[in-house]
């Protein structure tokens, strides 16, 4: 094994890592927005909303993310332009595809988190005179967040790993960087190993930070 290539190619891994983190970050934010909307639709009294949200969630969860990424890449045609060295014609469809995908999973996380709150809580809030919306805001959501946050953190970790799929549409994230280096030095093994270690450092750091945040949240238990 020879890691001598790192002195010449570490720039690629650095760029790839930054882009992977950027993609994961944007995806989770967009995914939470999409997921919250879907979750609210799914627990709403409106049947049309419920059916639409369920259809979305089932379809996204029932198809491979690789297929979804490619569909969005060909579906969303954007003229070539670059922001911070990133090719937006690839980056934007890529992030949208991941967000649409993540949103479906986040929706289920949020729905489960809300429904896990004892239904006596809603009754107690309503009996004091709170409206359904106020009860959600002051009583249900604050408790649901404690159920949701750990799972949401896991989703962030999943997104970091799944963003590697975007290498197929030519976004230079970590996986694609490994490919580039692999081809340049005619050796597959070492660049892939470096990539795996970087992914692990990212996800392991996240799960540690989440563990701390979770313990802080537990003050009232």
């Amino acid at each position, binding site marked *: 094994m020879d890691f001598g290539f790192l002195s010449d190619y570490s720039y690629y891994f650095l760029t790839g890592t930054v882009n992977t983190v950027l993609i994961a970050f944007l995806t989770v934010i967009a995914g939470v927005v999409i997921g919250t909307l879907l979750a609210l639709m799914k627990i709403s009294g409106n049947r049309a909303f419920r059916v639409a949200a369920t259809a979305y969630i089932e379809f996204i969860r029932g198809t491979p993310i690789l297929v979804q990424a490619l569909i969005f890449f060909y579906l969303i045609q954007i003229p070539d332009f670059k922001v911070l060295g990133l090719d937006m014609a690839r980056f934007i469809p890529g992030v949208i595809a991941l967000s649409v995908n993540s949103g479906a999973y986040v929706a289920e996380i949020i729905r489960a988190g809300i429904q896990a709150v*004892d239904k*006596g*809580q809603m*009754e*107690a*809030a*309503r*009996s*004091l*005179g*709170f*409206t359904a919306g*106020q009860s959600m805001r*002051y*009583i249900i959501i*604050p*408790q649901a967040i*404690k159920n949701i946050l750990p799972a949401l953190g896991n989703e962030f970790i999943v997104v970091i790993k799944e963003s590697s799929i975007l290498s197929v549409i030519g976004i230079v994230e970590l996986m694609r960087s490994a490919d580039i280096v692999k081809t340049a030095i005619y050796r597959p093994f070492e660049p892939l190993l470096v990539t795996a270690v970087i992914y692990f450092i990212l996800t392991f750091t996240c799960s540690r930070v989440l563990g701390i945040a979770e313990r802080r949240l537990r*003050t*009232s*238990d």
Partner: protein
Amino acid sequence: MIKVKNLHKRFGKLHVLRGVEVSIKKGEVIVVIGPSGSGKSTFLRCLNLLEQPSDGEIIFEGINITDKRNDINKLRQKMGMVFQNFNLFPHLTVLENITLAPVKLKNEKPKQAERNALALLKRIGLEEKADNYPAQLSGGQKQRIAIVRALAMSPDVMLFDEPTSALDPEMVGEVLEVMKELASEGMTMVVVTHEMGFAREVGTRVLFMDEGSVKEEGSPEEIFSNPANERTKEFLSKVL
């Protein structure tokens, strides 16, 4: 104060309430007894529309609360409710549990609401628990605080849904004591309970419910010493 006319409640095919007729005056302590499945909890939960009646009318302080045009959220502010499982808000401290509704719904100043809450806590001897979370309290303490949380809204009537059924036996007394005190101050109360001693001692009127309707009602002496209805006799012979 509360008039219930021909109240029906169906859960699908199950006909739980079959024409309940009750009239409750200010200052009365109505104790509802009866076998499980007789519809007494459902009846109580209909009074503040936690259950939507299938048919019939409930008039509270002259307002038909079953009429959808009336704002049930405003009306519920005047009807305190205490649950079997306490239902304190676990993410809030005891003090926050009590002050949340007055501050958010009645626009009380937080300082004022806290003073009221502390005064109420002092009455039940739990002022030192103000900054604790519900998980740190015993069942009896939780239920006393749940009562105080409802009282903080200054309701006109208090509804109790089997308030001592989930408690360890040695904690039943402290909760009943608070309820007795409340009754002696003239609070209008509707209490669903299996505590016959409380019914006899504190109730001004006892309703015996069975199979979804009120089978017999009267003063505690009448019901307990000289029940007229066969089902009442049978029930009391089993529980007394």
